[in-house]
């Protein structure tokens, strides 16, 4: 049952936060404000859902949060460091350490096995990594795919593909997992399984999980829900879970 409050009372410092972030596309008559004065913080151990209608600014919000896009105005902080002023070439190492991404379409290399898909992410994040294959096996085991490591995406179910994508997102042990409609292509049971996995990543490993979704069923796994409309974060609701009391 959601309760509305401007900002929840955190139990820790935010891992990432946006302060007064505005994003304007184009200029002159074609100018469009995709995001306006957005304030949002992400805390370790929580699942934060971002909900809103299509075109409301959700994607722009997570793109800026994930350091994939620069805001027109405002600041982005990662672990308290203001990173929005950094040069573009300084951002990849920060993204590598802080973020993993999961997408609706999985974005797995079809030619590679599950293990190789995870290993390539590890090697690309950390080119000098020597134990990428072992680490990939460990991550796949952690998401319940110990017996599917040598299968290619075409031989995996949708839920299994998404688990591979989650294992890949965990490469390099990022503090924040960002999911863009990660359950949209899955049936209800599989979608709930995937979210349960996300929940455990947050609860047991202290990661922050930020998920963009249209699916209200996912709220049962969330700690907070940020609602975005017309480019504005109109509310951040804390979800109370009776079973968590």
């Amino acid at each position, binding site marked *: 049952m959601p309760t509305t409050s401007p900002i929840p009372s955190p139990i820790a410092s935010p891992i990432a936060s946006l302060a007064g972030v505005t994003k304007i596309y184009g200029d002159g008559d074609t100018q469009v404000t995709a995001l306006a004065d957005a304030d949002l913080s992400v805390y370790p151990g929580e699942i934060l859902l971002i909900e809103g209608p299509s075109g409301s600014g959700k994607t722009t919000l997570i793109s800026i949060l994930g350091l994939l896009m620069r805001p027109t105005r405002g600041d982005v902080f990662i672990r308290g460091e203001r990173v929005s002023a950094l040069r573009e070439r300084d951002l990849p190492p920060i993204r590598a350490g802080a973020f993993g991404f999961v997408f609706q379409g999985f974005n797995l290399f079809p030619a590679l096995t599950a293990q190789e898909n995870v*290993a390539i992410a590890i090697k*690309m994040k950390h080119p000098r990594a020597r134990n990428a294959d072992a680490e990939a096996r460990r991550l796949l085991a952690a998401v319940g795919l110990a017996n599917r490591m040598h299968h290619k995406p075409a031989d995996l179910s949708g839920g299994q593909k998404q688990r591979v994508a989650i294992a890949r997102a965990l490469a390099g042990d990022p503090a924040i997992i960002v999911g863009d409609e990660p359950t949209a292509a899955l049936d209800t049971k599989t979608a709930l399984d995937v979210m349960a996995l996300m929940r455990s990543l947050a609860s047991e490993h202290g990661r922050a999980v930020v998920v963009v979704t249209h699916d209200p069923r996912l709220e049962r796994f969330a700690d907070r829900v940020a609602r975005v409309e017309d480019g504005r974060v109109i509310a951040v609701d804390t979800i109370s879970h009776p079973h968590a009391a």
Partner: protein
Amino acid sequence: MWTLARKILLHDRIKFTVAAAGVSISVMLVLVQIGLYLGFMQNASNLIDHSTADVWVTGEGSENFDFSAPIDERAFYKVASTAGVARAERMLLGFGQFRLADGGTQGVQVIGLDPGARLLRPWHVVAGDVRRLGEPGAIVTDITEAPKLKVHRVGERREIFGARAEVVALTSGIRSFTTSPFVWTDLDSARAYTLYPADRFNFVMVEAAPGVSPEALARRLSALPNLDAYTTPQMSGRAQHYWSARTGVGAGFFTTAALGIIVGLVVVGQILYNGTLEHLKEYGTLKAMGARNSAILRVIVYQALISALVGFVLGGGLALLAQHAMVAANLTVKLTPALVVGTAILTAVMCCAAALLSVVKVLRLDPASVFKG
């Protein structure tokens, strides 16, 4: 990363086969065309390169070794008496009509040498006795020209321009640039075979005295009236340059080789670019997660190098087959180590250049694009 690049590349085997075929054809064209060119150029200066002369003297203004202007005996004696000349030998190079056993004729290129010539002799002798070359009417032909001359063994007798000729020895693999088979003989017989006047010939081959540099001697001999003199490497270069540059032969071969490279560039470039486009979301995902451009570019460059390696091996094999097949047509495809190594490097560079479009695409890939559906 090599393994990953290979797997991504080989995932679509049909596309990879097309890419490998493109590179193979490119490699084969480069090797065969330049190999043929080198073979022709080798033939163009074959006689010069196998002589032990230090300096070659010819009529003034003669640009083509095979069609050199005649000079006379006075020139020979002037050369032979020039300071720094240890030995001088005459050589005639002209054309004659060889009467075949079946009654037909075949144009031949006659090489006439002084009796007891030491500075140039037939080499690769496979049958007979080349020492008999000084005997009147004795000739040496090449066994690889047997299909043209219908001469298969020592002792066979023919006529050249009506003059008697007896095969006293056979060589193997000595071919002319003009495709007219060489016929070696003594100077007097050569004049009869080519209808040259009795005191005419084309070249004086010179051995420099000990301590005399060929370059200095060539300059000294060039000062003689109506004569030009060149060191043996210069003469070799002139013979090759004439056929290569003045006749357009070189341009023809290299244009075909260049077309081969363009074919390879286009095919590999298109395949790699398509492959990159197909994996744009995956590459974007990796970029979003912090992978540097250099890491992704390495995968693309590795794919280009794998295409180059496979294409080079296959193309090299095709070139060897072509080389073998062209022996039957009496054509020499000279695959030198330098040509093979150079083509390998060229192939790698070509494939990496073909990957440039993909590289640009990845460099410009906005990691935020992964959120765009």
